[in-house]
């Protein structure tokens, strides 16, 4: 479903961020991309949600070449790809429920659909009782769960999680991981970038190891080994 072919990414005046990347991800997979900071994990994921463009190579999603998409088609692509980040990226001036419904509003869903879906999805991530709180009034783990809810509410085909547990304590981390696994069980492809050895080893799924912008190993049921 997702193909990176001969990708390289060079920022002017620095060493290449990505070099000769070839990677295929099938629908429904759960792939962990691991490596040190600066190994190129985030850059690789950014190519997929088109925040960055590769210097050379092709990124395709559902057999569509992302580089051929027009600027006004990008928002539609982004609705098919859910994203979660280390810093949650919630809108601070909106309540938790509004943060989730925003993703639906943007997609042009009806008010009725929004008012039905939002409480449901907040319940799924265990935040039903805090819908009217603002992001700063809840814990980091809870903020990340809202971010997950927002990422899922448009039923994306792929969920990209870039260091989603980087700021969380072990318990919250595990809660988020369980949610990610559950999401994957329902059929959403999950791409997780992390440097948390513990969780990668514990979930025992496909692991892609990166170093200095290259993929150095790619194993089904892998472990975090550098």
């Amino acid at each position, binding site marked *: 479903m997702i193909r990176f072919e001969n990708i390289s990414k060079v920022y002017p005046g620095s060493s290449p961020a990505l070099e000769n990347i070839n990677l295929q991800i099938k629908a429904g997979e759960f792939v962990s991309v691991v490596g040190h900071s600066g190994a190129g994990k985030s850059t690789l994921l950014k190519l997929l949600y088109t925040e960055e463009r590769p210097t050379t190579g092709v990124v395709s999603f559902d057999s569509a070449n992302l580089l051929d998409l027009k600027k*006004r088609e990008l*928002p539609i692509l*982004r*609705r098919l790809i859910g994203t979660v980040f280390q810093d949650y*990226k919630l*809108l601070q*001036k909106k309540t938790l429920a509004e943060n989730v419904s*925003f993703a639906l509003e943007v997609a*042009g869903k009806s008010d009725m659909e929004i008012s039905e879906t939002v409480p449901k999805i907040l319940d799924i991530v265990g935040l039903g009782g805090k819908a009217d709180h603002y992001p700063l009034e809840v814990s980091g783990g809870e903020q990340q769960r809202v971010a997950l809810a927002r990422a899922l509410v448009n039923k994306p085909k792929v969920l990209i999680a870039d260091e989603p547990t980087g700021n969380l304590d072990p318990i919250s981390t595990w809660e988020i991981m369980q949610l990610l696994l559950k999401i994957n069980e329902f059929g959403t492809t999950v791409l997780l970038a992390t440097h948390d050895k513990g969780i990668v080893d514990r979930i025992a799924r496909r692991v892609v190891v990166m170093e200095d912008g290259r993929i150095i190993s790619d194993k089904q049921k892998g472990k975090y080994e550098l």
Partner: protein
Amino acid sequence: MWIKLRRTFRSGAKNFIRNGWLSIATVSVMVITLFVVNIQLAIIGANDLRLKDVQNRVNISIEIRPETTLPELNDFQRELEGYEQVSSVELVDKEQALAEFKSFTQSGSTIQSGIETLGENFLYDTLVLKTQDPSQYEEVVKKIEGSASAKYVEEINYHKYRSIIDGLSSELRTTRKFSLTLAITLSLVAILVTFNSIRITMYSHKQEIEIMKLVGASNNYVRFPFIWEGIFYGLASALIAIPLSFLYLKFITNGEASSSVFAFSNTKFLKDFMAVYFMDNILVIVSLQFILAVMLGVVSSLIAMSKYLKKF
């Protein structure tokens, strides 16, 4: 489309309210902008009224020789009325002139007792003449002096006043230029300040814009709440600035009118301006103000956020 407009409106309104201090700061700057522009415009308006007033006061008094008979005088008056430049000719006979003169001076003063001792009316019958346009006086005076009726004329006092009138008119024109440049300069300064403060507001939205795009919002969907926000800034500031300017002008024109030479302290004409011009055109002024304020808000918002939208 409608659903988008409605949603972005709602989110713009929420932004405006939840931004709290930032909104207050932006609106205050815009209020000051509009206020300064309003006051300058009022001063220009008052100044124009004053110029018109001076021009209206200018007239030519033609003093008639005492030996002129009444029919001759009437013929002369009709002749003058026939000039195409002349708008009115009024006869002030010497009795009337003396009565007016007396009423100007205090009873019991030396001038009054002087008049009494003199025993006879020392004034002349006078034709008071006005032209369509003050610039035509020179021409008319020359025409009279060249005509056959010049024999009735004792003196034309236009020459006496001319330098004073010319001086005053040119002073008023200078004041007008001064006020206008001041208004334009201050407006530019204020527009820049407003633009800058909206830019700062937008900077605070930087991450928000990034997130909105990430969730899959189109550029327009991101833009619209901020356009609405700009509209709210405009509306709120016009709503405050209009009554504020009005009250301020009312306050300084309150009480005894002073007619100082300086436009700034000349409240008489400011008062007239308020009473006549401002009240007559209040709808135009208010709606123009709203449009200007909203445009200022929207354009500033759009320019300020464009750089965050370009990124991806």
